[in-house]
């Protein structure tokens, strides 16, 4: 990350957004149709809450940024005229 992120989005047990969504889906499915013990259910529930927080945090993670990469490999912000971020005429 190029800026400090909220802790929820840097959980080391979660690989990425896709993995988080996939895991959350499988947890919900297990809880919905599995015959699990109370402990298992609670474990899954807690994990599910972590995942869902992670996903939401990821959605808000980035700021809108448009950068130009030069052939020497430096990054600089794109001019406002290109990004269309100036007020609409």
């Amino acid at each position: 990350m190029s800026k400090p992120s909220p802790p929820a989005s840097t959980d080391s047990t979660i690989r990425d957004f896709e993995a988080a969504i996939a895991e959350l889906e499988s947890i919900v499915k297990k809880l919905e149709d599995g015959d699990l013990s109370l402990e298992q259910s609670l474990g899954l529930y807690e994990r599910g809450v972590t995942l869902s927080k992670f996903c939401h945090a990821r959605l808000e993670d980035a700021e809108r940024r448009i950068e130009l990469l030069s052939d020497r490999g430096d990054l600089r912000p794109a001019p406002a005229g290109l990004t269309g971020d100036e007020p609409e005429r």
Partner: protein
Amino acid sequence: MSDLFDLPFEDAEPPAEEPVATRRIFTVTELTVRVRDILEERFFEVWVEGELSGVRLWNTGHLYFTLKDSSSVLKGLMFRSALRYLKFKPVDGLRVVARGKISVYEPKGEYQLVCEHLEPQGLGALQLAFDQLKQRLQAEGLFDAAKKRPLPALPRKIGVVTSLDGAAIRDILKVLRRRYRNVHVVIRPTRVQGEGAAAEIAAGLRQIANVPHVDVVIVGRGGGSMEDLWAFNEETVARAISISPVPVISAVGHESDVTIADLVADLRAPTPSAAAELVVARKEEFSSRIDRLHERLVSSALGRVQRLSRRVHELSGRRALAGYTTRLAMTQRRTDELTRAMTDALRGVFTLRARRLQAIDRRLDASDLGRRLARNRTTLVTVDAQLRQTVTALTHRARARLGELAGRLDTLSPLAVLARGYAVCWNDDRTRAIRDAADVRTGDTVHVTLSRGAIAAKVSGIE
């Protein structure tokens, strides 16, 4: 004097001009040189058509071939310097039109065409080049469906390789801005047409994939003629796409233009705008998907706990009373805590969503969207109300469950022994149970607690 190993076409000494009065004897070389001069002057620039055969590329980089028709052959060669400009690959059997001059290869006494330019007959040179490269890369498996990688659902950064001058980059940024406002885009500006453009695009593709967190790359340009789009039909671009460590979306020209880049890319977008739509889903789609999952998570976990507490309850009802009340009370406390935690969690979902709705609301406020704004607000109010209802309903259900549990706990007190037909007899002010008939006198009022209800009774006699 030339010897056998001299390069062809090297100028030899001009032959001396002499009157033909006497017998003029040439050396072979002298004659050959004269023939050469005449041919070169007479056929300085000719166009000739025929079929290529015996095509051979020498390691000097020069191309040797024979042009033939039904009854004649013409030897030809093309120097490396001219060959460089050919887009397609000359192969045997190809019908071509060649431009060049006729010259003589003195060591062999052969005349030949020194070709400056070659073009395929029928198809355009570009079309032919396209077909040839397509065929070759296809055989190598570069277009295989199995090679296509899935796009990341939520790319951390989106790379774009294109020109800053064209409409393509503006279209892409406009669409991205609308769909997912806080997106992070890295653009590698390159030329997209003309000599050297292909090399720039290929270098850009290699470079941008190395920027940390660029998870997907869009490469393309706006519409144009086949010549304009040509860079995207060059092998170097195809190779760069093929070896890119992250998935590549091609977006070249219009719907109808299919380039080699499109065939190699992991996904072909018909236009640059379409590429921006394919690269990331609308942010709201993500949010609502996660919210739905979270709601299902909470309600399924809650249901699970409720089912379990019901079972604990049924089991304890069946057993002897001693010792179980405490355990049941503890279980009840546990379910109580859990239920509260779940309800809190659900409220959390609600708060989260409400906050996000507010954020969306603010954004809608900021962009003057007129009627759409009003419509969205109505939806927000409805969703809000629905959420409140859901939370209330769930809370109620949890409370009812707890009430039931508490009720059952009462029944499980030692008084439940009354259910077996025993009754407890209390003194008038119900301060102690009567264990001895001597404790009462005729006429006293006593209270009898039964399994269901209680009765007041008068002692009519002592036995």
